[in-house]
């Protein structure tokens, strides 16, 4: 069976600087993959390539057996930084509804069935109370949940999350990881994080990206491999600072 994500010898050079080198990665369906690595190691770039927002100089990327651009509508994406202004006059519900763009008719207002279709997403993320609020007054953690809700509203086969817990407190972080683990039943997940402690409790596999990819463990994470991982990770950080 074709893997959900298939990267073959992907490389990228920007302004003479090598960003990614010979990155190969196969993620089978329904795997929960943790992508870790130092800042500037190319994690976000790799994620953007999987979405077709950037193109590699060399190598090949297949998402769900298709080119990233063609698969983009089956991928849910939670970016690390939001590009919009928080003062934008829009409600939480309308932001989440944007996940349903591209399905159904493109013109006219949202229909009742679209609004009903996102009920489950609001429940999953426990943000029903925020539904009719403006995004202006939301806290960082609430906004993060809204963005995850928007990604889930796409009903994605693959979920790409770039530091989704960066602005969430520890309890919120644990709750979110529980949620992701629950979602794994029907979704392939790639999650970028630098918090190895949380990530290793929940993910099936951890890979470390620092220009090149180091696959730490192909088998499910166990207590032994975590210890091993921590050691390697610490050494890696020493290497590069």
């Amino acid at each position, binding site marked *: 069976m074709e893997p959900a994500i298939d990267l073959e010898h992907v490389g990228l050079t920007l302004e003479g600087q090598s960003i990614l080198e010979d990155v190969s990665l196969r993620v089978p369906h329904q795997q929960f993959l943790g992508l870790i690595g130092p800042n500037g190691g190319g994690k976000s770039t790799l994620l953007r390539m999987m979405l077709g927002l950037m193109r590699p100089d060399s190598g090949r990327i297949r998402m769900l057996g298709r080119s990233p651009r063609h698969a983009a509508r089956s991928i849910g994406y939670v970016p690390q930084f939001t590009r919009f202004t928080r003062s934008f*006059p829009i409600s939480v519900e309308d932001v989440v509804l944007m996940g349903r763009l591209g399905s159904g008719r493109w013109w006219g207002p*949202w229909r009742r069935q679209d609004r009903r279709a996102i009920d489950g997403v609001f429940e999953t993320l426990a943000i029903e109370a925020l539904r009719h609020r403006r995004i202006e007054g939301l806290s960082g953690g609430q906004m993060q949940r809204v963005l995850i809700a928007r990604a889930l509203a796409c009903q994605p086969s693959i979920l790409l999350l770039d530091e989704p817990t960066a602005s969430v407190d520890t309890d919120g972080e644990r709750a979110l990881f529980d949620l992701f683990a629950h979602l794994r039943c029907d979704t392939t997940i790639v999650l970028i994080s630098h918090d190895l402690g949380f990530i290793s409790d929940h993910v099936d596999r951890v890979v470390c990206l620092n220009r090149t990819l180091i696959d730490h463990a192909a088998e499910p994470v166990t207590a032994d491999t975590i210890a091993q991982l921590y050691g390697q990770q610490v050494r890696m950080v020493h290497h590069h600072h």
Partner: protein
Amino acid sequence: MNFIAALLEQPFLQQALLVGLLAGMASGLIGPYVVVKRIGYMAGGIAHTVLAGMGVAFFLGSSPMVGAFICAIIAALLIGCISLSGIDQEDTLISAFWAVGMAVGLLFISQTPGYRTDLMSLLFGNLMLSTRTMVFGLGGIVAALAIILGLIHRPLVAVIFDEEFTRLRGVPTRALYLLLLCLVAVTIVVLLQAVGLIMVIALLTLPAALAGHHVRSLVGMMVMASLMSMLFIGAGLGVAWQADLPAGATIVLLTGIGYIISLTGHRLNRLFRRRQAASGTERSHS
């Protein structure tokens, strides 16, 4: 004669008011997009580039409104396409169009013999010159604007809010953005009649910004901006008639005053609420 009495008797004044109210509706429909997308400078650039089209039309002896229309659409598409291609910074590009468009217009006008009252009215607006044909023409344009926006409002808001995410959902974001710029261009030509190309930007941004102080949804902003815009234009026309002042300038001045009052009220209200909240927490602590 007072304005209301004159309005009942004089058909030209009724036409002026109708054209003004239609312009107000157009500004209310498009203004909120311009404000939330922050393309006020681009709208100003398109408005001033329009002088090139009017100059050429004058020179060729055809209607300056037709010249303005064609030129506005071309300017919107060119600025939009070049800025999307990322060849140069957007503001530099707009500045170039702005100034070069005016220069081309002035050169063509200088080479056109004859009387230039029409031109002055397009630079600074003159509602008093409104005709019956104009009322029907603008009525049709405003109706078309409303229908197009009714169809594309949802994807358009998504493009303005988060272009990247919307593109990933398979929505043709570039085409929608260019369409928005064309709608802005059409609105600019509609507003030319009321306040002229130099002051168009006031009606395109201030009523919408004012509405943004009080309502927190785009549709709400459109309704309120339309109403406020129609109020300023109607009142401006009345004051101008009564005091024998140029209508365009009076309308813009009233709009500006309305905006400043609203902004001040909005800020004071916020400050007051914050104070109240602060003293509330103090009391609960003591």
